[in-house]
């Protein structure tokens, strides 16, 4: 049977974590805030913008350049232990003047706590924020999706490329409010582009290189690829 020394430790709630209970009669605004919000304010006075409690969920607004440090603190500090990254996403409001928000949902499984971190990115400039991939490996695809759908660039992400749309997609960022529901081009043009993309037949140059498959390609195809043409067919 299993040698106890090699069994990985089990992760779970602390014995003195709050007793879980279905939330009831939640006020719209106000109510008890997550204690982590006050600690963030104390630890990062210059980065802390404000904390809201809406429907019992605490949101901490943080300056975009400090998000990484705040999340690093929430992940590492023994009083916080937000070891689980639930979600990374963005919100753009219908009022186009309002800044675009990047949202991180964090959970502390040890302390049974939930907190939402938000950073507001002013539009018009480059939308960029530091990636939390070095802290949570699970952020990989979530950040790629934000980039794909909203055009927010995550600095330090190892492989930031489109994920749901194909790599040659040219219409922009679909979940932005200035993107029309039916897309930018006519149906005929969209169909033509989608057929021409033929993503199954494509390998990225990176994929061809890892497998040394590039050298095996026919010489005319190699020449075309070196001439800057996109891979495919």
């Amino acid at each position, binding site marked *: 049977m299993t040698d106890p020394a090699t069994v990985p430790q089990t992760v779970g709630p602390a014995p003195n974590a709050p007793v879980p209970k279905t939330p009831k009669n939640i006020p*719209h605004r106000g109510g008890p805030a997550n204690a982590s919000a006050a600690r963030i304010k104390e630890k990062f006075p210059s980065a802390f913008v404000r904390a809201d409690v809406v429907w019992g969920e605490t949101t901490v607004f943080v300056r975009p350049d400090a998000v990484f440090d705040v999340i690093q603190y929430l992940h590492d500090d023994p009083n916080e232990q937000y*070891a689980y990254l639930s979600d990374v996403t963005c919100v753009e409001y219908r*009022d186009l003047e309002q800044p675009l928000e990047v*949202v991180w949902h964090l959970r502390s499984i040890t302390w049974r706590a939930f907190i939402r971190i938000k950073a507001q990115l002013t539009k018009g400039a480059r939308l960029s924020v530091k990636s939390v991939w070095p802290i949570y490996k*699970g952020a990989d695809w*979530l950040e790629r999706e934000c980039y794909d759908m909203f055009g927010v660039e995550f600095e330090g992400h190892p492989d930031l490329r489109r994920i749901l749309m194909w790599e040659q997609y040219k219409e922009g960022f679909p979940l932005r409010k200035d993107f029309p529901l039916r897309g930018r081009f006519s149906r005929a043009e969209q169909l033509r582009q989608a057929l021409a993309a033929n993503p*199954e037949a494509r390998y990225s140059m990176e*994929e061809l290189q890892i497998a040394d498959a590039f050298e095996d390609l026919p010489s005319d195809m190699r020449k075309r690829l070196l001439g800057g043409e996109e891979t495919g067919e």
Partner: protein
Amino acid sequence: MATKRTVDVALSTTGLDSQGRPQRVPLVTDESGNVTTMEAPPALEPELEGEHMLINLGPQHPATHGVLRLVLELDGETVVRCIPHVGYLHCGFEKIGEYRQYNQIIPWTDREDYLNSPGNNVAFALGAERLFGIECTERCKVLRVIAMEMSRIMSHLVWLGTTCIDIGAFTPFLWSFQERENIYNLLEGWCGARLTTSLTRVGGMIADVPDGWVEGLKGFLQTFPKTIAEVDRMVTRNGIWVGRTIGIGAMSATEALNYGLSGPMARASGVAYDVRKDFPYLDYETYDFDVPVGTTGDVYDRFLVRMEELRQSVRILEQAVARLPDGPVNIDDPRIILPSKTKATTEMESMIHHFKVVMEGPRPPIGESYVAVESPKGEKGYYMVSDGTSKPVRWRIRPPSFVNLSAIPKMVEGHLLSDVIAINASIDIVMGEIDR
């Protein structure tokens, strides 16, 4: 340096110890506590060394459970690197949701994780209700628990059947789909639909259960454990099954947490995280059930965890059926819930309410909510932002199988090509949910 070892289970009954229990292969960890799963590939013939092959698995391969494409770099038959490509089924649900009223979004939730439609409907209704600041009735709560656990059984049965097929056992597939048919018949009796149920509305359910329905469910709860026992007897100690699954695709608890795994994937690795227990909803804390937690986090542990979850779902369903209270299913708020047909056609007031709810839709106050439930795949969350109009500014699905799948390059590394199929099956992906 990690101490390497071979996964030493032969394809016979030698996978069992003297008591007939499956033999667990101890995991080996390196100095930093990460699990090393496989022995390094054997030294190659000199003339073959360094020759890597590129294999394209999918998007039309039956074992990828949908349109998933994996580009695999192979050294002999060992996977060196895996690059997943998703997005073939991308439909823009989140974009469409921004142009729909809350009740109109519910049919879209059927279609993302289509094996778990009632669970998605309930999860969305819970999220929307928090945004509206309302709570459903007591009877509705219990009915929703019944819907969620039924859909967990449905989803796990499909997972069980297809995984058995992937690994080479055909019979459990037929047994599990037979039981799934029984659940679909029950659902058809409740709401008229089998796959795309649209079972909930904001503030209630589409309908109360019909007369005699609860007896049908009780009958199912009596016969279903027999099928689980049969599958258990056939598969759990089967030498081929054990040999194909033990020690494959293991993730340690810290890794699982860091990669954002949730649901059975995380629990098989030893992360005791179940949304029903830790962040309960629908009074789950008042039900008596256990959360199975594995130790090694390999494919076999994921199988055991899911099998135990089937039994626990039966337990929850039995308690829910026993406590099902009488009373209304929908809340009493004419701004949110449609009036009855009789009232709408005979009373002026009700007709106005009917018109307003249908044409304009219910309006939540400005705010946002993130409500997560324990779907069969893991933590399924709906994040909704309202600006006070009847349509959400942002409707975000937190897809558990999307995050679980993102760890596949880590899981398949160093395994054989045939193990990629087993690992991919163990994640329990639904491409409708991944691509949305």
